[in-house]
């Protein structure tokens, strides 16, 4: 008999990585950061005696539907860590930066994929975390909707995507309000600025894909992820 509840966290991470040509100078750093990120979250939680039940991670790699056609979006399944660490690392390492066409990219479509992930909702404490690394602004959602490989069922507008994210008053149909966090390593450009101003549970480090991030700021981000709000 045990009258106490051992709070165990189920942590899911989705890494959205801009893999267009302009990311070439930083893509290897982003890959390293992605590979370290989940380890840092785990270490910080363990230091605070927050026990992890499951940790999974998936990748959404994106470019530009209009310019890159079938290379515009690549998503993986969730990898369970640490068991599938090698598969995850191989998937990250396979990313190469090319294409992209004009400066804005189709990051909002990538976010839509991320929001609609098959999140783990089992257990008491969940964290559903999306992390974006990019050096570019985003197109309007649906900018390339005329392209043959553009996904069906995509949010029709930024407003609809905002509803997919949800807020305190209107729970998202796809991601739990108390569990979700969105971390942006992105420049202060459209629509990143709109997102941090109007979506809840967002942390934005304004830079090109996290360049110049100080250690104490990084710890602030990690702490904000696992602690309750």
């Amino acid at each position: 008999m045990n009258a106490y509840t051992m709070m165990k966290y189920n942590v899911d991470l989705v890494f959205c990585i801009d893999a267009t040509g302009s990311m070439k100078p930083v893509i290897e750093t982003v890959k390293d950061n992605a590979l370290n990120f989940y380890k840092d979250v785990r270490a910080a939680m363990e230091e605070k005696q927050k026990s992890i039940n499951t940790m999974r991670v998936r990748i959404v790699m994106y470019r530009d539907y209009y310019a890159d056609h079938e290379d515009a979006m690549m998503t993986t399944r969730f990898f369970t860590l640490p068991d599938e660490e090698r598969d995850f690392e191989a998937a990250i390492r396979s990313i190469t930066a090319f294409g992209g066409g004009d400066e804005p990219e189709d990051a909002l479509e990538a976010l839509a994929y991320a929001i609609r992930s098959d999140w783990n909702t089992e257990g008491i404490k969940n964290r559903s975390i999306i992390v974006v690394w990019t050096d570019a602004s985003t197109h309007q959602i649906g900018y390339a909707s005329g392209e043959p490989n553009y996904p069906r069922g995509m949010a029709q507008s930024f407003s609809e995507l905002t509803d997919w994210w949800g807020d305190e008053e209107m729970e998202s149909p796809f991601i739990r309000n108390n569990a979700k966090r969105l971390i942006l390593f992105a420049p202060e450009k459209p629509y990143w600025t709109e997102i941090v101003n109007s979506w809840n549970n967002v942390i934005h480090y304004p830079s090109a894909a996290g360049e110049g991030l100080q250690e104490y700021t990084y710890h602030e981000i990690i702490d904000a992820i696992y602690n309750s709000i």
Partner: protein
Amino acid sequence: MDVNNNIKSTAPLLGEADFPPLVICGEKRQGKGEDSYFCSLEAQGGFIGVFDGSGGSGARTYPEFGGRTGAYVGSRAAAEAAMEWFREWTVSADGDAPEAKAVSIEKLKNKIDAVLGAYHKMTASSSGLRSSLAKEFPTTFAGEVILPDEAAAEKMRVCFAWSGDSRCYMLDSAGLHQMSVDDLSIKDAYLNLSEDAPMLNVISASHSYRINERKLKIKKPCVLFAATDGCFGYVKSPMEFERMLLTTLAASTCINEWREKLSEAIDGAAGDDFTLCVLSFGFGSFERLKEIFAERLKRLEEDYPSSEVTDQKKTRERWENYRKEYEKYQ
């Protein structure tokens, strides 16, 4: 900044407190705990209060405060403000003017706002992050101001005040009562043990907030508690928190032993920092305190057998019965 984690006592509290304020606290990362408290026992009245810095929204670190987080600083700043407020109140309550004796939670809020506002000005530089999650120096609060009831010697006047998910409790022979209402999207104390409900209201320097208050006359004898969620948030049901309080009391021979046993019990269960402040009134002795709650523990065991704590369906049913008394004052 002084960390005011100290007990300031012990004038003859109303002549009626059974012992000085009891404080039980622990932290998960030594030296980095984000809870704080302030307790005081004066001739004019008593105060117990706990503060729990919110680690998620208060994760920003401040070089001006030795690299401490906003959560760490916020809980201590609010405790400091409560100490100043209470001290000023005890001075004014010594006068003859009836209005000066009144407890004003609005003045407490003004005091907290002034302290947090000053801290905010000291730390105007940004961490470089933009965030819809972050708050400046966020902290919960649960506190109780206890005054004698001049009209009825068998009662006390108590002002319960809170922001966030820290709680005010009162334990009497009928059982444990939650006197505060959680500022969470879910109000059901049992359900909140299995949901990670977001906080709807919390003290901070950057966002508007309120301090809820409820003024009641409480019959003695009783025990008053102010608790952060590390104390009650890791048991399987609210009944188990009461059982924890009562079984540790029953196994103790003096007040210090109760403090030690209760601290061990909470520490064994908690996955978070915890702080519990306790004041009891009207029992006269530790033996009498034990005697009265031995009866209550017997009834608790009969009505909510500890053998059933892992049976979720039965626990849910028993909670529905237990909550009638538990929520009676809400």
